[in-house]
C-alpha cells in the first residue's frame, strides 16, 4: 500500500489526535465519568474567559522557556531530563537574590532584573554539572540529570524548612511571601505579567534564530546527528555539548525565576511544577523542531489549566490532563511509526 504524498503530515496528526481522544474517553468511561462534560469543563476552564486565557499564558511562559532550552539540547542529541532541577535551581537563585536585596536600598527594577539573571545563572550551573558528569564522568545525562533533580529537590526543601523557613511556622506552604514591589508587575486584576510573556517570547526567538539561522545551530545539529563524524570534521563536540547544556539550563533557570518573581512570589517545594518534564513531551510532539512549539505549548498549558475544574466540578483528579498529553505524544509516535513502515514496505517487495 502506498500513501499519497500529501497525506503524510497534517492528516496523520489528526488521526493521532483522534486516537488520543478515543483513548482518554475510554479512561473517563472506566472511571465512570461523563466524557463530554469533562471535556467541556476543560475547554471552558481554560478558554472560557479572558481571565482564564491569561491564566493559561501564566503557565505557557515557563513551559515555553523550558521547552526552548530543551530544543537546544535535543538538537545536540542530548536528553536533558535534568531540566526539572535546572528550573528549581533558577527559582532558588532568584529567591536568594531577592532576599539579599530586601535589606538594601536597590530600586525594585534592579533587584528583579538581578534576580532573573541569577536564576538564569543558577539553571546554567546546574545544567553544566550534568554536562560535566556526562563528558568527564561517563554518566549518561539521563541518570546524572535525574540524580541532580533529586538533589535540587532536597536543596529546595532544606531551604524552605531550614535557613529560609518562615520563623516558627516553616511548612510545605513555602517561604515567607516576598513584598509586592519585588514582583514582576502584572496586568491589573490578573495574574499575568506582560514582562514574563516578553521573556518567553525572547527566549523562544533566541533559540529559533540560533537553531535555524546560524552556523552554530547547524554544527550543533551535526553533533546531535553523529558526534563522531562532527568531531572528525573539526567541530569541538565536547564544547558544543557543554554549551547546549548551559543554554538549556539558562532558559530553564529563567523559567524558575519567572515562577518566583511573577507567579508564586516565594519559594515552594514543587516550584518547577513539572514544566520540565512537560516540556520534554512538547518537544517530542513537535518532533524537536521549533516552529510549532509555542502553539503546542499553549495547548498543553490550556489542558493543565482547564483540568483544574475537574476536581471542583466533577470530583475527578486533575491528572487527566497528563493522560491526554501522554496519549497524544504516544499516538503521534505510533502513527509516525506506522507511516514509516508503510513507506518502507513497497520498496522491500520490489527488490
Amino acid at each position, binding site marked *: 500500500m502506498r500513501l499519497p504524498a500529501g497525506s503524510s503530515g497534517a492528516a496523520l496528526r489528526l488521526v493521532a489526535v483522534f486516537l488520543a481522544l478515543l483513548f482518554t474517553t475510554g479512561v473517563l468511561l472506566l472511571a465512570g465519568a461523563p466524557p463530554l462534560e469533562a471535556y467541556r469543563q476543560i475547554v471552558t476552564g481554560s478558554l472560557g474567559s479572558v481571565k482564564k486565557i491569561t491564566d493559561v499564558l501564566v503557565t505557557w511562559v515557563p513551559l515555553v522557556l523550558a521547552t526552548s532550552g530543551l530544543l537546544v539540547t535535543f538538537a545536540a542529541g542530548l536528553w536533558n531530563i535534568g531540566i526539572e532541577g535546572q528550573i528549581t535551581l533558577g527559582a532558588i537563585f532568584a529567591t536568594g537574590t531577592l532576599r539579599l536585596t530586601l535589606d538594601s536600598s536597590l530600586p525594585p527594577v534592579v533587584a528583579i532584573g538581578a534576580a532573573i539573571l541569577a536564576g538564569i545563572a543558577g539553571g546554567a550551573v546546574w545544567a553544566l554539572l550534568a554536562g560535566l558528569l556526562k563528558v568527564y564522568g561517563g554518566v549518561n545525562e539521563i541518570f546524572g540529570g535525574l540524580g541532580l533533580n533529586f538533589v535540587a529537590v532536597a536543596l529546595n526543601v532544606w531551604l524552605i524548612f531550614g535557613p529560609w523557613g518562615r520563623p516558627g511556622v516553616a511548612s510545605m506552604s513555602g517561604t515567607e511571601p516576598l513584598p509586592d514591589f519585588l514582583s514582576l508587575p502584572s496586568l491589573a486584576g490578573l495574574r499575568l505579567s506582560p514582562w514574563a510573556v516578553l521573556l518567553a517570547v525572547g527566549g523562544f526567538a533566541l533559540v529559533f534564530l540560533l537553531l535555524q539561522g546560524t552556523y552554530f545551530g547547524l554544527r550543533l545539529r551535526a553533533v546531535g546527528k553523529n558526534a563522531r563524524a562532527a568531531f572528525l570534521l573539526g567541530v569541538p563536540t565536547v564544547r558544543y555539548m557543554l554549551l547546549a547544556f548551559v543554554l538549556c539550563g539558562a532558559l530553564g533557570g529563567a523559567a524558575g525565576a519567572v515562577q518566583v518573581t511573577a507567579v508564586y512570589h516565594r519559594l515552594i517545594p514543587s516550584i518547577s511544577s513539572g514544566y520540565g518534564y512537560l516540556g520534554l513531551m512538547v518537544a517530542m510532539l513537535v518532533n524537536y523542531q521549533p516552529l510549532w512549539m509555542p502553539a503546542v505549548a499553549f495547548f498543553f498549558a490550556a489542558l493543565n489549566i482547564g483540568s483544574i475544574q475537574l476536581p471542583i466540578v466533577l470530583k475527578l483528579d486533575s491528572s487527566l*490532563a497528563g493522560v491526554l498529553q501522554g496519549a497524544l505524544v504516544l499516538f503521534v509516535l505510533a502513527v509516525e511509526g506506522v507511516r514509516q513502515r508503510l513507506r518502507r514496505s513497497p520498496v522491500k517487495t520490489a527488490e
Partner: protein
Amino acid sequence: MSIDLLLIGLAGVLAAAAPIVFATIGETLTERSGVINLSVNGTILLSAMASFGVAVATGSLLLGFLTGMFIGAVVALVVAGFSFSLKQSQVAVGFVLTLMCRDLAYFLGNPFIGLSGPRLPALAVPFLKDIPVLGPLFFRQDLLTYLSFVLIIGAWAWIFRTRPGLSLISVGERPAAAYVRGLQVNRMRYLYTIVGGALVGLAGPAFSLSVKAGWKGTISGLDGYGWIALAITIFGGWNPIRAAFGAYLFVFLQWLGLVLQPNLPGVPSQVLQVAPFPLMILALSLVNIGNTEWVERTLAGLPDEVRRSIGRVLRSLRASPPASLGTPFESE
C-alpha cells in the same frame, strides 16, 4: 540501641527493599537483552494502584499481585512494540509512558484513596526462624521478601550459569553475531522486555499490598522509586547480585536517616529521605569513570606503581553496559 532492635530494623530493610529488588532485577534482565525500558517509575505507580484496587474489590491478594505483573508486562509490550516494530525511540516512548502511567494511576486511583485493603501477612519459616541472628533477619519475613531472595540468586544463575543466559548476554552484546548464530534477536528482546516488565510490575503491589500498604494518591510516597531502580540497575553493573546490594544499600541509607533523625535536629526529615539519591549519582560516576578517555589518559602519565593500584580500584568498581543497549536491531 539493643541488638534486638537493630535486628528488627535490618530485617525491615530487607523487607522494604523487596519492591526495589523486583524492579531492579526486572530492568537488569531487560537491559541485558539490549533494551532500555524507561517506563519503570510510572509502571510501579500504576501497578501499585491497580493491584490495590483489585485486591480491595475481590479480597484476593493473589489477583492483586497478578494484576500488577500483568500491567507491567503490558506497558513493557508497548515499549517493545514501539521500539522494535514501529522503530521509534525507546527512550522517548519509555519516558512518555512513565509520565502517562503515573497520571493514569492518580486519575483512576481517586476512588481507592485511603481505603483499607488486604495486606500480605508475615510467614515465619518453622525451625529456621529460631536460629539466632539469621532467624529474625531472614526467616520471619513475608512471602514476597522470600521471593526477592530467590529471585536475586535465580536471576544471577540464569544469566551467568545457563545456556539461555549465555544467549541473552550475546543478544545484548553482539546482536548481529547472535542473529547469525541462529538466535531470534527481536523475539528474544520482546520476551525479556515483557518478563522484565512483569517483574517491574510486581514492585507495585509489593509496595501497595505489603511494604507501604494502601493507596494515598499523590502522597503515597512511591513516586521516585522507579527512577532509583533504573539508577541501581546501572550501579549494579547489570549483575543481579550487585544490583540487589545496591537496593539494600539504598534502603539501608534511608533507614539510617530515620534512625539518626532525632540526633540531627537541624536537618528536616524531608532532606534525609532524599539524601541517598545524591549518593546514588556519586556511585554512578564512580562506576563509570573508569570507562572515560580522560581518566585513561591521566593514568597513563602516572608512575607505574600508582597507575596499577588506581587502575585496580577503578576496575573493581567499573561496569560496562551491554554493548547494544538502546540500539535497535535490524536483520536486513
